[in-house]
């Protein structure tokens, strides 16, 4: 066959258009929906300790999510975003990484953060915007961040973290750190320009980054297939940008874990960026401000309930004999009590002092911010009843 030497292309003489069927990417599944392994397939290299830690984190996150949705309904917090149904995607992938790998999340990866060791008290401090919150009460609930745990602070704008992950990983590569960055986002965010910029640049620069797309079927109310995209999901885009790509069952803890483990090896040892598309389903609304009954059916939700990642893994663990029903229940009850206790405690802790308002805009507050703060405090002193949270905490010594 003839070849174009400049572009190394095969030459054809009859017009032929390719369509989406030219690249249909299969889905890796190891653990079936019934909690048993596919025939002839071995469970990935996950020892008992790790498996129990993963399951423990799954249980904790499910309790936290359910309890905090209720707390929002009771008016105790303003807002909440649940990861219900997607626990395997974030926890299974985080479990395959090292503690010094950077995590850049969207806002549905509380499981990864819990796996890293963020405590129930730290979760509550952020959710209640109290003075112990690492983010100093400045962002809406669920916008967690923790430098010690290498978990980049969450921001609301979608997809902005994706090119940032490419840049972060570039620095890791240049430092010869032997670490990588994982970046989570949804299939909706993958429509943003930042996604395309990020994948292209990562492939061009060959940086150690793992892009993890949680394809959970919906962007708020917009269904993925046919309305978010017309092609075969997100995975083919990775191939088009020239990077290693895999699609996994996002509700299968083993598929997620194994794919991420292999991706990390490619990223760190060969500077190959990787795209993982985890197929899953957002069991709850987009947030507590959303009601899914307006755009999807109960039957559809039930069909996914049967694929539940936590129940699936629990079945496998029970069959393996690594947990038993009684211990699992006791563990669940203990976690639930800890969540309730932390909630009650955190909501009593006061908000950060008003002086924090002008900190961290710059490394030190410039003159005009100090002046604006003094003017604000004078105003609060004049009308203390209008600002009860702050007025009582201004000391008399301030001007």
């Amino acid at each position: 066959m003839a070849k174009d030497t400049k572009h190394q292309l095969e030459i054809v003489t009859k017009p032929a258009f390719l369509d989406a069927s030219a690249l249909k990417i299969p889905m890796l599944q190891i653990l079936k929906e019934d909690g048993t392994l596919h025939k002839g397939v071995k469970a990935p290299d996950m020892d008992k300790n790790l498996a129990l830690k993963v399951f423990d984190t799954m249980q904790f996150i499910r309790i936290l999510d359910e309890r905090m949705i209720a707390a929002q309904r009771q008016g105790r917090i303003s807002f909440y975003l649940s990861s219900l149904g997607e626990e395997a995607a974030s926890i299974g992938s985080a479990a395959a990484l090292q503690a010094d790998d950077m995590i850049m999340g969207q806002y549905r990866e509380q499981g990864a953060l819990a796996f890293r060791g963020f405590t129930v008290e730290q979760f509550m401090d952020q959710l209640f915007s109290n003075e112990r919150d690492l983010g100093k009460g400045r962002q809406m609930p669920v916008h967690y961040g923790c430098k010690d745990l290498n978990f980049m602070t969450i921001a609301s704008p979608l997809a902005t973290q994706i090119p940032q992950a490419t840049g972060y990983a570039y620095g890791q590569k240049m430092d010869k750190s032997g670490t990588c960055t994982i970046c989570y986002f949804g299939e909706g965010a993958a429509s943003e320009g930042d996604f395309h910029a990020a994948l292209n640049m990562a492939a061009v620069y060959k940086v150690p980054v793992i892009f993890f797309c949680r394809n959970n079927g919906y962007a708020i109310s917009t269904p993925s297939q046919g309305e978010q995209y017309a092609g075969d999901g997100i995975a083919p885009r990775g191939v088009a940008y020239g990077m290693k790509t895999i699609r996994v069952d996002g509700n299968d803890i083993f598929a997620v874990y194994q794919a991420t483990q292999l991706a990390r090896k490619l990223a760190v040892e060969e500077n190959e960026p990787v795209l993982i598309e985890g197929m899953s389903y957002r069991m709850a609304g987009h947030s507590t401000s959303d009601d899914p009954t307006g755009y999807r059916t109960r039957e559809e939700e039930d069909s996914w309930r049967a694929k539940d990642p936590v129940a699936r893994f629990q079945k496998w663990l029970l069959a393996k004999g690594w947990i038993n029903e009684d211990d699992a229940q006791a563990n669940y009850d203990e976690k639930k009590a800890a969540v309730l206790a932390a909630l009650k405690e955190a909501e009593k802790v006061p908000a950060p002092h008003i002086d924090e308002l002008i900190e961290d805009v710059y490394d030190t507050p410039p003159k005009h911010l100090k002046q604006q703060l003094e003017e604000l405090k004078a105003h609060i002193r004049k009308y203390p009843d209008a600002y009860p949270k702050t007025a009582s905490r201004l000391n008399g010594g301030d001007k």
Partner: protein
Amino acid sequence: MAKMNLLQAINSALEIAMTKSDKVYSFGEDTGSFGGVFRATSGLTEKFGKHRNFNTPLVEQGILGFANGLASQGSYAVAEIQFGDYIFPAFDQIVNESAKFRYRSGNEFDVGGLTIRTPYGGGIAGGHYHSQSPEAYFAHTPGLKIVMPRNPYMAKGLLLSSIFDPNPVLFMEPKRLYRASVGEVPEEEYTLELGKADVVREGSDVTIVAWGAQVEMAEKAADKAAEAGISCEVIDLVSILPWDVETVAKSVFKTGRLVVTQEAPLTNGFASEVAATIQQECFLYLESPIMRVCGLDTPYPLCHEKEYFVDHLKVYEAVHASMNY
């Protein structure tokens, strides 16, 4: 000291910064071994290698997203946007990400190592999309610093300060002066304070405030005013965020008159901010209304650039009007 034009001064600052720390990276469209469309990054790839000074794909939002990530990792990211007119795809990354990175994380993370270099301004027959002065859009964003040098000496010292400043800095380079402005510049490292205005010329009758390339027009107007017996004090703001209210107010206490001039369109430009603040600070000292001499509220034109351009004659007329109010 050496004679350098503004581009050579910037190139010298980049070379010194990259020598000083191997965590300094320079990148942008065509900025690799080619050295950028204006040649500001010439020679850097040869000296520091293609991993320290490199090309990016053609995607401004990606350049800034990448730069934010690299800076958050602890590196010094010096990102070039080829023209200020093309910075808008990166607006979200700058305004929602760079500017808020430290604040939103409670100082867990920051992008203090970020510097965005971009040429701005008119007078080069660049039409709509190679002439704009977009500083005011960014000056509305807490968390950024915005620096605009007027000559090679200022450019080098300010760029070195910007790169190592612990905050994200938007460094806007007056492209009309890239080769036109030549001056004595120390070959070694030196820094200039960010946020401090520079009194370019002392005077007693009228204060003229400008920044970047427009300082040249302010000085020329002051020359013409001097011929008419009017003594102008010319202040280069140097940095518009934060800006040095004190130096301008001190001058206006003395002169009682203020003319603010900018290349950008009149409405909601940074000159309006200067005027509003100074009328509050100096109200009882003012002898005439504060005047703004700015571009028209139109897109930047091509064939009528000479008429549109905020030249020294327009600034002089405002000075004259202020004196005769």
